[in-house]
C-alpha cells in the first residue's frame, strides 16, 4: 500500500498544479476587484477550445497557439469586464455573481452548440513518454504540467515583486481605496486584471486540454476545484491559492486510493463545505472583520 504513496503524490502534484494555476488566476481577479468570477471556469474552457482551434484548425505550433489563446482570452476577459461588470460594479453581490455566471453560460452554450457532440482531444506537442525514478513513474504529462506552472509562477512572482507595475498591483491588492489615491485609473486597472486572470486561466485550460478530452463542461469542473483550492488556502491569498491547489490535487489522489474512489470526485466539494463551515478563513487567511 505504501509503495504507491510517492506515485500518488507525484500524480497529485501534477493535477494540483493545474488547480493552483486556475485558483491563482481567479484570485488575481478577486484581489484586484473584490469580485468572485463565477464565470471563470468557462473562460478556462474557452482557452482550451481556443488552443484547440489554433493548433488543429489553423495548424499552428503549440507555443504560438498558446500565446495567441492567452492573448485572445485577455481581450475576452477585458471586454467582459468593460461591457458587463463595470456598469454594475456598485450593485449588489448577487448581480455581480449572476452576471459573471450568466456570461460564462453564454460561452458554454456557444461551445456546446459548436462542438457539443464531438470528442476532441488536443495533440500533445511532445512525445508521451515516461521515466522511472526508483519505483515511481514520471509521465511526460506530469513533468510538462508541473514545470509549466512552476515557470509561470516564478514569472508572476518576479513581475509582482521586481517590477514597478508589480509594486502598484500589490499596493492595490492591499487597499482598494489606495488605488484611487495614487491616481490609478481604477476601471482600466480592473479591466486589465480581468484580462490577466482570463489569460492565466486560458493557459490553465490549455494545459488541462493536454490530458483530458475537451468538453464544454470542463470549465465548471475546474471552477469547483479552483474554489476548493481557494477556500482551502484562504480566499484572496495568492500563495494560499497555489498551496491549496496542490494540496487538493494530492488529497484527491490519496483519499481516492486509501479511503474510497468516491473521493476522486468529491474531495473538492467536501473540502469547500467543511473548510467554510469550520475555518472560513482557510489555512492561511486571516479572519475577515465583520462590520456593523
Amino acid at each position, binding site marked *: 500500500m505504501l509503495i504507491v504513496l510517492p506515485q500518488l503524490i507525484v500524480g497529485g502534484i501534477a493535477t494540483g498544479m493545474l488547480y493552483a494555476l486556475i485558483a491563482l488566476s481567479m484570485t488575481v481577479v478577486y484581489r484586484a476587484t473584490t469580485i*468572485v468570477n*463565477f464565470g471563470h471556469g468557462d473562460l478556462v474552457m474557452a482557452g482550451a477550445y481556443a488552443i484547440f482551434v489554433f493548433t488543429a484548425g489553423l495548424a499552428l505550433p503549440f507555443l504560438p497557439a498558446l500565446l495567441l489563446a492567452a492573448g485572445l482570452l485577455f481581450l475576452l476577459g477585458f471586454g467582459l469586464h468593460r461591457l*458587463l461588470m463595470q*456598469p*454594475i460594479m456598485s*450593485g449588489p*453581490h*448577487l*448581480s455581480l*455573481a*449572476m*452576471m459573471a*455566471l*450568466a*456570461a*460564462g*453560460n*453564454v*460561452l*458554454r*452554450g*456557444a*461551445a*456546446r*452548440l*459548436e462542438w*457539443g*457532440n464531438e470528442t476532441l482531444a488536443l495533440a500533445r506537442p511532445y512525445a508521451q513518454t515516461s521515466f522511472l525514478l526508483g519505483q515511481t513513474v514520471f509521465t511526460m504529462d506530469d513533468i510538462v504540467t508541473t514545470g509549466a506552472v512552476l515557470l509561470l509562477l516564478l514569472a508572476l512572482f518576479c513581475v509582482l515583486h521586481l517590477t514597478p507595475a508589480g509594486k502598484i498591483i500589490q499596493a492595490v491588492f492591499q487597499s482598494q481605496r489606495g488605488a484611487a489615491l495614487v491616481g490609478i485609473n481604477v476601471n482600466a486597472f480592473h479591466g486589465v486584471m480581468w484580462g490577466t486572470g482570463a489569460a492565466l486561466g486560458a493557459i490553465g485550460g490549455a494545459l488541462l486540454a493536454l490530458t483530458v478530452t475537451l468538453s*464544454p463542461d470542463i470549465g*465548471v469542473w475546474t471552477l*469547483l476545484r479552483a*474554489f*476548493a483550492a481557494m*477556500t482551502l488556502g484562504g*480566499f484572496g491569498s495568492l500563495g494560499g491559492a497555489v498551496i491549496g491547489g496542490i494540496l487538493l490535487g494530492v488529497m484527491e489522489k490519496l483519499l481516492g486510493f486509501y479511503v474510497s474512489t*468516491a473521493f476522486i*470526485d*468529491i474531495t*473538492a*466539494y*467536501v473540502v*469547500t*463545505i467543511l473548510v*467554510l*463551515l469550520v475555518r*472560513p478563513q482557510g489555512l492561511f487567511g486571516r479572519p475577515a472583520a*465583520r462590520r*456593523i
Partner: protein
Amino acid sequence: MASEAAPRRARRRFLLLPALLLALPPFLDQYQQYVVNLVLVYIPVGVGFNLVVGNLGQLAFSNVAFFGIGAYTSGILMLKLGLPWWATLPPAGIMGALAGGAASVPALRGVRSFYLAVMTLAFGELMRWSYIRLESLTGGSMGMAVPSADVFGWALATEWRKFYVFLALAAATVIATDRLLRSRIGRAFMAIKDNETAAAAMGIATSGYFVLGFAWSGFVVGIGGAMFAVLVGHLSPDSFDLIELILQFAIIMVGGLASLTGSVLGAVVITATPQIFANFPGFQELIFGLLIVLVILFLPRGLASLLARLHPVFRDQYYDG
C-alpha cells in the same frame, strides 16, 4: 376606508385567474399541455428560490439540490415502498425543508455572499454526485422510471389530469407564500436582507428567520420536485445539473427578484419558450445566460417591475390589509 380596502378586493380578483385556466385543457394538444404542466412545476420552484435569494437576500445556489431531493424522495418512495404519489408529497416537502435547514447552517455561522454561493454550489454538485452513486436507490446515471401516479386512487394518466392537480398545488404554494410574506415573517426576511443589525435591533431573531426562510423554500421546492418526478416520469442526475441552476436563476431574475408575481411570471416565460429549442444542446444555456445578462443591465427588477407600473396590485406588499 374604501380606498384601503380596494387593493385587497383587487387582489381577490386574482383568484379568478386559475379558475379561468381550468377551462384550458380542451384547447391544447398533448405537447402544449405538457409545457403548461412544466410551467406549473416551476411555479413552486421559482417561488421557493426567490424567497431565499430575493426576499432573504442570500446568495444561495442550493435550490437545484432541494428540487432534486424532492423529486428523488417522491420517486424512491413510490418505487421502493409502493407509496401512492399523493402520499409522497409531504415527505418530499419535508426532505426539501430539511435540506433547506441544512443549507441555512453556513449562513447562521456567518458565511455570506460569495462564500455562501461557493459553498452551496459545492453542495448542489455533491447531491448530483449522490444521485449517480446511490445506484440502488436512484438508478444511478441511467436514472429511474417513476411509477404512474394517482391522487387518492384517481390515476394521473393524462396530461390534463396532472394539470388540475398541479394547478391546485401551484396555487396553494403561491397563496401560502403570499400570506407568509404579508406577515411579520415576510417583513423580517426583507429586514434581514437589508440590514441584519437593524433587524435584530427591532427584536427580530435573525437566526430563526434564516432557518425558516431556507426551510420554507426547501419545502415548496421539494413539492415542485415531486411534481416534476411525476410529470417527466423518469429521473436522472442530468436533470439537476448546472443548466438546471441557470434555468432556475433565469426564472427569478427575469421574473423579478423578491417578487411573488415575478416568480410566477418567470416560470411562465422561462419554462415555456426554450422548450422550442430543447433539441439543440447548448441553446438553453446560451439563451438563459443572455437573458440574465440583459435583465441585470436593463431591467434589474425584472418583468414584475413593468407590471407594478401598470397597477399597484402587482406591487409587493409586506402587510395585511
